[in-house]
């Protein structure tokens, strides 16, 4: 039996597609109802909040997981990153209104002390402190684009796919922090005990891909 942690919410559909591509049984995942543990043949799926997925693998409750690279960067849990599936591709960016955007084109001293609203406090802290910039971080759990509109923050650090939401709220991309996509991760233990399974996954996903990120 292999235990696989998956993120709930909109990423779950992407995950089902990946599992299907890998040839893993996943028909029961389409309509999980309120169940958080779904067993299909030799696979047990654990449905968790996206930010909690790495912890389930780290503590050994799950052998493998599908997790966004944004979540992996934010949680910074020591897991083995097996492959980049390329699914759910988007960008992690700093965005803000035009007047803040122009401050980023000047020397860094013009942006020191800016307030950044984000769902990724650790990543944001690491990204700016690596560049020697002191920022005030405002940790929000969603609808981050609201913060500059209401004057709570000067800019945001968030994921963006098409850019529609940013434009609708008068924000523009200032700089790209990292490319984001869905990754296959495994626990250190499972990469030894379940190497056959892992290598078959790597073979099915084709050539390994990878994207580094600039933070830290």
């Amino acid at each position, binding site marked *: 039996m292999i235990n696989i942690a998956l993120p709930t919410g909109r990423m779950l559909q992407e995950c089902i597609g990946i599992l299907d591509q890998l040839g893993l049984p996943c028909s029961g995942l389409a309509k999980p109802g309120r169940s958080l543990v779904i067993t299909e043949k030799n696979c047990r799926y654990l449905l968790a909040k996206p930010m909690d997925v790495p912890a389930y693998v780290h503590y*050994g409750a799950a052998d493998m997981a599908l997790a966004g690279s944004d979540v992996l960067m934010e949680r910074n849990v020591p897991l083995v990153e097996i492959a980049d599936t390329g699914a759910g591709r988007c960008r992690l960016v700093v965005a803000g209104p035009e007047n803040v955007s122009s401050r980023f084109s000047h020397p860094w001293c013009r942006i020191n002390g800016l307030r950044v609203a984000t769902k990724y406090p650790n990543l944001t802290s690491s990204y700016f402190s690596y560049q020697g910039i002191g920022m005030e971080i405002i940790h929000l759990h969603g609808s981050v684009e609201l913060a500059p509109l209401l004057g709570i923050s000067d800019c945001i650090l968030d994921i963006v796919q098409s850019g529609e939401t940013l434009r609708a709220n008068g924000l523009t991309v200032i700089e790209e922090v990292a490319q984001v996509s869905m990754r296959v991760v495994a*626990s250190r*233990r499972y990469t*030894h005990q379940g*190497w056959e399974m892992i290598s078959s996954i790597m073979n099915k996903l084709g050539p*390994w891909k990878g*994207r580094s990120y600039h933070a830290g």
Partner: protein
Amino acid sequence: MRGLPCGFRSIGGIPAERIERARQSFFRVFTSHGYSVLLPSAVQLFGSCWERLSDEIRNRMISLGTPSGETGCLSPDITLASVSFLSAHYAPEERPLRICYGERVFRSPSAPDNTADTFQLGAELLGWDGEGADVELLTLLLRALDVLGVEESFVVIGDVTILSSLLAGLPEQTASALRNALARQSFPAFREIMERAPLPESLRSPLNELPSLRGGMEVLKKASRILPRGCSTEGVGKLAGALCSSGFEERVLIDLSLARELDYYSGPVFEVFCGKHGKPLGGGGRYDGLLSSFGMMGQAIGFSLNLDLILEPSRISPARSSTVMAWPGKLQPDKALSIAECITEFNRTIEMSWVKQRHRSIELARRRNYRWWTDLSEDHVYDLTDGSRREREEWLKEGWSG
């Protein structure tokens, strides 16, 4: 008033007894093979640790000022303290040296954990040349895991010189990026660096295959076809082979891409896992280079295990379950204590309860999860699990039975 700084723990009661029992069990395995117990200082010199530890641990060192004005840190790694002690206290002719320890190490918490202090069990063997020392240490390690009741434990063996040989001719920046990607265990990042870096064609295939050179002994055959001549797997092969011949073949795996977080390893390295945890329980390896940095020549090998992780899934039961609670009944304290003393001579642990009411004494024994209760003014012992009564003399002769 807050009792403790965030991340630090005082441990008492049953968890403390479990830790102490585990330490004693671990020490028994090693001291019976000539290892002596080391009690290292909880504070080390900051500079000495900074020079020798990896970036990951440096960033987590907890510094403090010493009374003499030096910059110190709470001990982040006991191997360093051990080698420092041995280099200062023993002459070369006194080697080989064997030590074991069970102490706390201190590092700032790293996600998702939130404790700054962990208990480490470990052992170091300095001064024996050849693979005998490596086999001895790993054999005792596996035996200790059994004694500690760690289920489904296994070791993964690698050799850091394999990666070093492969990277030897590359520009430092590329070599370092590849090494870091493997240490971070990110295969996509490792692959991406390989694709971008100007690598000689002869290196592409071995580096590409390196992360997949893991599994049982058959990996060594595969490696001999893939790795260039300079990359010897002989050390790993002999070590893994000797452990398999010693009856541990089900518990030995090989990973030729294994890169430990500490920079001081210079030969075979290993990590220890068990069935319950995703992360390693600990690990170790050969650190001849570290030894020479302390002015000592020769071979050294050691390991450390995270005792907090070991105790979670293990079968080690709290010592108190075998304790008998003794109530003096109608006896005067001196007479009661004298009978209690006789009971302890039979290797029984006893706790006196001086309450006046018999039922309150029994309640207390139950709350403490004790199995046995006795009224010292009578000749019986009661088993609180089923309420049965036994003759005390007969019970004492039976010996310890949990």
